[in-house]
């Protein structure tokens, strides 16, 4: 694998927030076009890894590469530029609650491109159709359920066709039908569009079937990393717990 094939790379990254050491000595790389899942319990540091990946946080130590560019010391305009090729689905959905569903999807497109309004509307319609929210385009986000907000977060993140998609616990707080739709969306992104997916999750069952690599995070350290089968062979009790959970 050449350096150009790597979408995200962490080199000995450490991060503290306040007095707490959130991450210690984290190293991994995500080859382009693959699915890399970070598995961990609550407060294991999964969200921090995702935020570090696109420069929303800066590491205290180590280096982070996105699209083969070192973003560790990158200035803000540079970070905004590299983020154009990424999408982020937040655990809390982070929907802009003062604008309508359709405007949530249109807003980043309007900021990034100078497309005519008719083209933009068509793009928004396509994105909402993709996640089954086309009937809700005029509703306000506060009127949506948690699952619908998550889907809206997907539509917004996918609007600009990102090459790398980061997902923070995409199955958190959603019903099983929406969960299945999300899994289908991710499979589609992986197989048809070759999107690199970096997923933070807390259940093995959610990610095992379509992950190329899984890293298990425990108290800020990676305790197992490899293909799902390799991780299954790991003797660490926490890793075993993740597999037992699914039985």
């Amino acid at each position: 694998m050449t350096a150009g094939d790597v979408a995200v790379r962490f080199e000995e990254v450490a991060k503290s927030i306040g007095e707490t050491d959130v991450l210690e000595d984290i190293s991994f790389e995500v080859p382009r076009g693959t699915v890399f899942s970070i598995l961990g319990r609550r407060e294991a540091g999964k969200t921090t890894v995702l935020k570090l990946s696109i420069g929303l946080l800066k590491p205290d130590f180590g280096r982070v590469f996105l699209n083969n560019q070192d973003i560790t010391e990158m200035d803000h305009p540079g970070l905004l530029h590299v983020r154009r090729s990424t999408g982020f689905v937040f655990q809390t959905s982070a929907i802009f609650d003062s604008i309508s569903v359709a405007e949530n999807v249109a807003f980043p497109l309007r900021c990034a491109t100078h497309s005519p309004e008719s083209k933009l509307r068509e793009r928004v319609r396509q994105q909402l159709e993709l996640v089954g929210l086309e009937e809700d385009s005029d509703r306000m986000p506060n009127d949506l359920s948690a699952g619908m907000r998550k889907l809206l977060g997907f539509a917004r993140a996918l609007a600009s066709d990102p090459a790398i998609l980061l997902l923070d616990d995409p199955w958190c707080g959603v019903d099983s039908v929406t969960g299945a739709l999300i899994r289908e969306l991710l499979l589609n992104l992986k197989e048809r569009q070759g999107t690199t997916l970096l997923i933070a999750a807390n259940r093995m069952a959610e990610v095992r079937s379509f992950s190329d690599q899984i890293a298990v995070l425990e108290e800020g350290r990676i305790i197992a990393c490899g293909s799902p089968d390799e991780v299954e062979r790991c003797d660490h009790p926490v890793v075993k717990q993740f597999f037992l959970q699914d039985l």
Partner: protein
Amino acid sequence: MRHIIGLSISKSHPFTKPSFARHLWDTTTGFVSFVFRTITELFKPPWDAHEISHQLYAIGCRSAPLILASGVVLGVAMTELVWTSLGNLGAVGSVIPSELSRMTFRQMGPLMTGLLVSGRVGAAIGAELSVLRLTDQIDALESLAIDSFRYLVISRVVACIIALPILATLMSFAEIAGGFLWVAAKSEASFPLYAQRVFDKVEWSDYVVPTLMTAVSGFVIGTIPSFLGYTLDENAAGVRRAAMHSVVFSCLFVIASHVILNAVIPFLSGRSFQR
């Protein structure tokens, strides 16, 4: 019980002071760098005209009723004060309009506008930005390659800088109108005569300089609450604190900037307001 008290003392004492000092230092340096960044970004094009006009509506237009109503009431109150103070000296009808207009244009209009807008807009900006921070909406903007600082902070600061002089002008004229209501109720004075006396002793510089000074209040009202909201890293209680501190510190800094500019500008221009 003794054990619990002993534990709480031994636990809190060694750590409380250094952490407070550290917090104060971090906040101060953070604020200075935030102000520096705001000033730097203020002069960098492009400006988001759509968002600035949206904020101008929210900050300026929506504050106008409060400013007008408060101005009229203040005008009535100030006129009553002048009336009762100068009542025994006679010629009150001719003195009130000119005294009121000088007080209003130079001091009360700009200062009261700053304080009222600090309360209304400062709290709103502080609470809004802190909620956006808590709900990851600021990170969402950044993840979509949108410069959240320019979009959220600069647009609000620019809107405040533009809105304050306009609101201060409204306030001054509302105070003068309030003064007329009092004078009309107490005497037979006509509006044309009152209006003529209002502008008798007022020069353009009495209006222009203090009103333009309110742009500084606008900067203060835009920047302090933005700092408190944008940099919030706490829980829901932090939103309450951010909104409260936005009002308190905006008011304090508005008063301080008003006092300093009132002292510095006449000194620099070689002209005193004390005629």
